[in-house]
């Protein structure tokens, strides 16, 4: 018992010793956003964004550490220095750019409208006077709020919104298309469907968010993202996690 404990301690020390050689970057991630980032059955944080950052770390020489953080308040934690960066499917928007710096985009995303299987709604315009849910503080939720006549409803996690749509408390959900596909085509494939992709008139892309002026971390992450794109690793990851 004692021996094995001592062995574990030594093993840990050796592991950390090796890790100290390269920079560690702590990423906050709201792991409730399958397939981009989520917690799997073995309680590990996995997903497309996670694998992407791990690959970027290998290319640029940093060790990514992921910290599961609730979405609501994730930006406040970045500003107060609880972690170095956010890798959580953060869309780059003008408003967010004022509060934080962004890496180069690593994924292009669209907003999808999910409705019940029997619903005839094709767009947000068809849902006037109806309740539409989204995750608090996401571009999907902002799209709902911008739509005229729709009653927006904000949830802490997208899964809770999907469950409410599933039992019929709300009439539609808006979120990023890979996540929408995950819920509508896998988890709730018998009850929900993707109605359409919402046209917002602008390209929406994910980026890694860092504290304003933190160029050290930003440069490392950018170098990693560029290398991953150049080697085509991102295409493999897309096949693995999103299936396209």
């Amino acid at each position, binding site marked *: 018992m004692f021996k094995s404990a001592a062995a574990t301690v030594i093993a840990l020390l050796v592991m950390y010793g090796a890790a100290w050689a390269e920079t560690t970057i702590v990423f906050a991630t709201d792991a409730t956003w399958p397939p981009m980032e989520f917690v799997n059955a073995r309680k590990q944080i996995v997903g497309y964004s996670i694998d992407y950052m791990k690959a970027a770390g290998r290319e640029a020489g940093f060790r990514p550490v992921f910290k599961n953080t609730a979405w*609501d*308040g994730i*930006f*406040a934690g970045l*500003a107060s220095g609880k972690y170095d960066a956010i890798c959580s499917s953060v869309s780059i928007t003008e*408003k*967010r750019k004022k*509060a934080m710096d962004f890496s180069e985009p690593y994924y292009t995303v669209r907003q999808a409208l999910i409705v019940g299987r029997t619903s005839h709604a094709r767009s947000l315009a068809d849902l006037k006077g109806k309740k539409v*849910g989204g995750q*608090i*503080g996401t571009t999907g939720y*902002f799209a709902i709020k911008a739509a005229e006549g729709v009653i927006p*409803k*904000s*949830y*802490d996690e997208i899964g*809770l*919104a999907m*469950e*409410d749509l599933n*039992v*019929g*408390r709300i009439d539609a959900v808006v979120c990023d298309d890979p996540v929408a596909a995950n819920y509508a085509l896998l988890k709730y494939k018998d009850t929900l469907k993707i109605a359409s992709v919402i046209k917002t008139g602008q390209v929406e892309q994910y980026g890694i968010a860092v504290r304003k002026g933190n160029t050290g971390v930003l440069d490392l992450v950018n170098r990693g993202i560029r290398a991953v794109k150049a080697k085509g690793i991102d295409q493999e990851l897309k096949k693995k996690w999103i299936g396209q």
Partner: protein
Amino acid sequence: MADRDTGVEKIEIGDGAAIPVPEDRGLLSAWWIALCGTIGLLIVLPLVKPDPYADILRFVPDGILVTFEVTIASISLALVVGLITGLGRISSNRFFNLLASLYVEVVRGIPLLVQLFYIYFALGRFVRVPDIVAAVIAMAFCYGAYMGEVFRAGIKSIDFGQTEASLSLGFNHRQTMMYGILPQAWRTILPPVGNEFIALLKDTSLVSILAVSDILRRGREYASESFNYFETYTMIALIYLLITLVLSRLISTMEHRLSHYERR
């Protein structure tokens, strides 16, 4: 013996400083300072820095309404549930007694947050109720058990002699409870009910996880879009504080009016 005759000064024994009297100046001023400070900040901050603060004040009012709706509906339902539970707990009918006791044991052992999730999401599969109704049911279900204990304690605080007197006058058990015990017990029950009311109002902030647009939810929505977390939560805290300060004063006034027998 001799002391009494010779008129040695009488020694007065009071409550001491540990139990302040409501008329106590210190207590009054603490409340006044808190109230004036809260109102002052709520007025000064939006005037000095209108950019986030005034915007926040414009954004949350419908949330205040929802918070009150949930609180008042929950407390009304909880009072009814509590009265039935309290009577069940002292009932000589073994079935009702067991049922009420079981309810109290189960509810007190489960955190309110878990109960909220349970009633909203778990039961949502079988019974479809609107979000606010689900929140009210969950809050009333939880607080009903607490209220039950308050009622039971209040009823038990009435001397058994009252029941005996009432029964010997020819009242039956129901009449004894309705006309004899409950009107007296109400005075003991009211202060803790008032406290539960304020506690419930504060606990309604938990329903914001159910996507009910209460004060906290509105604040979080504002903060998530503007990133003004500090400013938003400052205002949210001040609004809650103002409401509970006013309510606690109302309740202590009511309590004071009801305490005929303890007046000095």
